[in-house]
């Protein structure tokens, strides 16, 4: 049954070029994955109890610098502590240095300056093959001339584990990722989702102190991707391993991470739990990268009363910054003109209906404001309607450019 599903999805995904076919492959891919989820409880004793649980490792970075060539600065002084057992995400646009940082953790790149310690041991100068760190590469980087089994066994073999023990571990991890019946296949006979899981298993089977993941889900289509996000998160929680995850997708980062570091231009902009980074971005870059558009300069302030192009608004605890952030989902739209404190008269200029919610573009005087409202079934404002925007003082956040 499971075998049929996996073989058929190998063929469908290989031929998947058009969007319609991709959607179909998602459906067939999902089969073994749901099996994994239901089998999870049964898996725990076989994968966990036999191995003595190991201490997860923390990572400490101090003043890491890296430049490529004469002009490209990849990392410009990174200080960061990643706690043991944390799911930590490096988030940023392409070229921000997140992948370089990950490669330095793996030992594939050497920092020009600074120190790196993993599990309390200084590994700044330690070559990659002597670090208890494994990577899931963006391109998977599986060995095409080896079978799935040989790919999975590679790390254990290099570390000199005796064959019987090695085979047992490989068989167990192959079972764990629901690819037990594919171990004799060659890698090029597998679908994208299967390769992704093999890449993950090839790293996990070594039980490293730290697992590094370089945008491992970026090559997959949306449905499969969100399923693997959940799966990855569960694996991490179960193994208690330190995961360092690189992505440019802020939604993915928020779903998965215990903490997020947002990078730009080789500098860490903010480190914190997803909620903090999203709701209290440290600066305009982080705010924009997390998807916020409602940023307004503060022209004057009188205590907690802030004058902005939208009008005068009172914030509960206005900070120091010179920018006001209004998250679209904190806004409420009232029909007609209903003046009051923290209420702004506006005109609806655009409405994007998204089913569960609707996004509005509003004009407040000359200024544009975005609002997102849950669709609870009440009347939705139409384009051209006069409305009143209402916002609670505790939802207003100030930040600096």
């Amino acid at each position, binding site marked *: 049954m499971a075998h049929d599903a996996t073989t058929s999805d190998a063929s469908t995904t290989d031929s998947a070029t058009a969007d319609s076919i991709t959607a179909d492959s998602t459906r067939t891919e999902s089969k073994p994955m749901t099996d994994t989820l239901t089998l999870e409880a049964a898996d725990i004793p076989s994968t966990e109890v036999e191995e003595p649980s190991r201490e997860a490792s923390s990572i400490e970075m101090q003043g890491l610098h890296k430049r490529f060539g004469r002009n490209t600065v990849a990392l410009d002084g990174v200080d960061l502590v990643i706690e043991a057992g944390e799911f930590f995400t490096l988030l940023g646009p392409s070229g921000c240095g997140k992948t370089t940082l990950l490669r330095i953790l793996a030992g594939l790149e050497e920092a020009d300056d600074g120190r790196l310690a993993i599990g309390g041991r200084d590994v700044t100068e330690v070559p990659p*093959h002597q670090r208890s760190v*494994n990577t899931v590469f963006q391109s998977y980087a599986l060995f095409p001339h080896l079978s799935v089994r040989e790919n999975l066994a590679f790390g254990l073999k290099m570390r000199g584990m005796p064959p019987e023990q090695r085979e047992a571990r490989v068989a167990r991890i192959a079972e764990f990722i629901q690819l037990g019946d594919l171990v004799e296949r060659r890698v090029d006979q597998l679908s994208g989702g299967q390769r992704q899981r093999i890449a993950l298993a090839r*790293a996990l089977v070594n039980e490293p102190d730290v697992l590094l993941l370089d945008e491992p889900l970026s090559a997959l289509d949306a449905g499969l991707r969100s399923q693997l996000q959940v799966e990855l998160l569960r694996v991490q929680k179960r193994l208690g391993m330190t995961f360092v995850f690189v992505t440019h997708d802020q939604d993915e980062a928020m779903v998965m991470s215990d903490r997020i570091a947002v990078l730009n231009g080789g500098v860490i902009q903010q480190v914190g739990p997803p909620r903090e980074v999203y709701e209290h971005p440290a600066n305009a870059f982080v705010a924009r990268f997390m998807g916020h558009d409602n940023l307004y300069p503060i022209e004057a302030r009188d205590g907690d009363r802030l004058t902005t192009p939208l009008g005068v608004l009172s914030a509960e605890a206005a900070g120091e910054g010179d920018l006001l952030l209004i998250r679209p989902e904190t806004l409420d739209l009232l029909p007609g003109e209903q003046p009051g404190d923290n209420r702004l008269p506006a005109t609806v200029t655009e409405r994007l209906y998204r089913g569960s919610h609707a996004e509005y573009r509003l004009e407040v005087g000359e200024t544009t404001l975005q609002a997102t409202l849950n669709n609870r079934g009440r009347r939705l404002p139409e384009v051209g309607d006069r409305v009143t925007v209402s916002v609670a003082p505790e939802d207003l956040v100030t930040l600096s450019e």
Partner: protein
Amino acid sequence: MSYAGVTPSARSRAMVRESRHLLFTVAPGAIWIVIFLVLPSAYLMGVAFMTNGPYGLPEMPLSLGSFERLAGFGFLGWSPGNLYTLLRSLWQTLVSTGLVVLVAYPIAYYISTCRERWRPIMLLLVVVPSWTNQVIRTFGWMNLLAPGTPLSSLAEGLGLIAPNMGLYPSNFAVTLGLVYNFLPFMVLPLYAAFEKLDTAQVEAAQDLYASPVRAFWHAVFPQTLPGLLAGVVLVAIPAFGMYVIPELLGGGKGMMLGNLVANQFSGGANWPLGAAGAILMLIATFIGLYAMRRIGKRLGGGEEVVI
């Protein structure tokens, strides 16, 4: 070709037209191959089984005499001369191909690491010497290695050769000539393999606890294997049948199978024996190719890497 006999009513006109079109496209090449490859080979086969006539030309009746002589059975009983020639050919091929691999591998790697705009120039430098006639280049080596030249004097000074002997003529000179001559044929396919090397695989190997040496062996070497085996085929087959280099640089001491065959068609004047030698070379080549395929398949994990 038999479509002409089928009535057009039996199949659609389009198919007939297509087959005729195909026939006209393939015919020139096919005729060429028949005239210049199939017929001569058939003739050679035939000659090998004929009797040697008084002027070295083949005559009837058919016999296996040439093969007996090739195996060393002559008027004076068995002599190992031809066997030595065969073994020398195999040995020279093996050694020179091995040396070509050792020299070409780092060169190809180095070129692939150069800046992109330098690479064509570097490749050109590798290839340019082979634009000169092989005979002329071999004469060049004669001048370089002859007794009294700086290289020979140096070898003499180091006690590697007897005084006044010179590096040429010798088996060493033949090996050197072969390596020099076939280097580009190995560098080019290897370079092609190195150029499309997937470095992520190398990094994955290092990440999975492979030391630099083992990462090379498990992640770099398999990727260059198709290029390497293609190069070995390109080098070993012509080297095995080489005539010019052993003739000029071996000075009669380094005779290879190619020289044995050539002699039978000229001075030796024994066409059937020459033809038998040519067939032996052909068989040896096929055995070698078969072995390469097997090796390639095993190392390449079941993939067809050779031919």
